């Protein structure tokens, strides 16, 4: 019955089929043009905004390639006329930049690895094990996020000064070896992990530690990636703590080491900026490579509400 009815309906519209097609084509042409204009507008707006956002970085790159003479003019000098690498080589020769970069890589690397270990262990306990005061302890961890670094930095400085470990790698690394955010992030991931997998692993005689290392961590790689990228960038960019606890060029990290040069004479501006560009590069590279992981990890349920 219904089929017949449908057929008859189609037939009754048959007459205007050609007209309809024409109308449709016209309409879609208009829409296509509209959409194209919109996309074009969007692209143009984006190009404008991206130029504003990236201006500081582009300008820094441009100055880094500029011969000193070209910088000190009253003319508008957006691009170097005779680009040169000499600022970079000068920077490498005059500043212990390689040492700074190695220090930063070492410190940021240790902090990242350390945080991944401590945070995943704690998060494992909070999501797979049952013990007394579990919720209270977790609340305490969360509450630490409220304490700003400045509320502890003076006492921390006094502590490490008394311990006599100023100006060492240990003092740069130790205070950052765990983070509430990391524990929270990992726990968030572990909560969605099938409990049955843990139980069957236990039945097979797998120890907790082995379960973490060979099952849990490989299966939550994206969380580790997100956390790793975030931690590394933050550690690479650390400023206040290294400023307080390092006293010699041997131990300075990139951010502190470079900013010490900032007060030098204006002739060294291009050299300093060349240094800045070299120092920004690793964090930008890691950001670009890890961006996908970072976004996936940061926003998988953690931010929804």
């Amino acid at each position, binding site marked *: 019955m219904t089929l017949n009815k449908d057929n008859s309906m189609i037939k009754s519209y048959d007459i205007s089929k050609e007209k309809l097609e024409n109308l449709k084509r016209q309409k879609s042409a208009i829409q296509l043009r509209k959409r194209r204009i919109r996309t074009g507008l969007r692209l143009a707006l984006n190009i404008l905004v991206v130029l504003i956002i990236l201006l500081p970085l582009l300008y820094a790159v441009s100055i880094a390639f500029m011969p000193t003479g070209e910088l000190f*003019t009253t003319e*508008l000098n957006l691009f170097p006329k005779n680009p040169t690498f000499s600022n970079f080589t000068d920077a490498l020769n005059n500043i212990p930049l390689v040492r700074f970069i190695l220090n930063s890589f070492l410190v940021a690397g240790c902090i990242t690895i350390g945080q991944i270990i401590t945070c995943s262990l704690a998060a494992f306990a909070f999501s797979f094990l049952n013990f007394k005061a579990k919720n209270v302890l977790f609340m305490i961890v969360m509450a630490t996020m*409220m304490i700003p670094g400045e*509320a502890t930095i003076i*006492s921390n400085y006094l502590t490490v000064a008394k311990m006599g470990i100023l100006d060492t790698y240990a003092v740069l690394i130790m205070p950052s070896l765990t983070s509430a955010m990391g524990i929270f992030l990992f726990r968030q991931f572990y909560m969605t992990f099938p409990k049955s997998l843990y139980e069957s692993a236990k039945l097979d005689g797998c120890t907790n530690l082995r379960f973490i290392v060979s099952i849990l961590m490989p299966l939550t790689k994206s969380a580790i990636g997100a956390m790793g990228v975030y931690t590394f960038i933050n550690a690479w960019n650390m400023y206040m703590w290294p*400023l*307080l606890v390092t006293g010699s060029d041997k131990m300075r990290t990139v*951010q502190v080491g470079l900013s010490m040069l900032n007060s030098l004479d204006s002739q060294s501006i291009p050299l300093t900026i060349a240094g800045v560009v070299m120092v920004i590069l690793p964090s930008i590279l890691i950001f670009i490579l890890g961006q996908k992981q970072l976004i996936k990890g940061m926003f998988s349920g953690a931010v929804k509400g």
Partner: protein
Amino acid sequence: MEKKAFPYCYLIPSFLVFCVFLFYPFFKTVYLSLYKTNNMGEAKIFVGLGNYIDLLTSSSFQNSLKVTIIFVVIVVFASMFLGLVTAVLCNKNFPAIRFFSTAYAMPMAIASSSAAMIFNIMLNPSVGIVNKLLNLNVNWLNDTNTALFCVAFLTAWLNSGINFLYFSAGLGNIDETIYERASIDGASSVQQFFFLTLPNLSPILFYTLVVNIIQAFQSFGQIKILTEGGPTESTNVIVYSIYRDAFFNYKFGDAAAQSIILFIIIMIVTLIMFKIEKKGVKY
């Protein structure tokens, strides 16, 4: 017995670090804030709330508070605005969207100190690009009227990257069909933005607001490098004032009291925000 102690073993590494570098120093800071200290930071004379009273009545600290509030308001407003605009621009698909979204998020990878060094050149009165582009002759960082604004703008730029990510995630969560229905009903895109996008974005807007306020209060590197609190204390935000009092004037007790005041301010702001959230934010 062994089994009962077992779970706590996994917490030991984290809690060891928390105890030594967070809980202990936090309580020590509270303790120090109640004392006058010597040059070595040892508590010498108990003064009770004396340090706090001295601070709250000193014109220098009142100035710091005022400067901090202005700074935080500018930073939060500007960085959220930048984040929102860029996120809306990248909301629909278009050619090279991946390049643009990477670029908008990029500032989050940049250190405050590196950025400060770049801005230092950009704002240089004679060779800087800002004066050249705007055809002005302003000594941005040495003028009490502009210095705070410059430092705040730099901070807003730095924070805009992560705001872009937050807002993009928020926009991605909005159901597309409500826009379709709205445009059938004849709503313009401006109306759609204010009556659909913003209300639907409110949970993430709120979260971002809290994070931004907390972050803005703690800005340090850019101020240390660009202005060192000057000119005439016009950029002397609380964090910089703490740094100067502790590590230049060796007034650790005073600095500790300022740290605690900062902690209390951040806590109150956070609590108020969550109170408002319960009433106002639509989920």
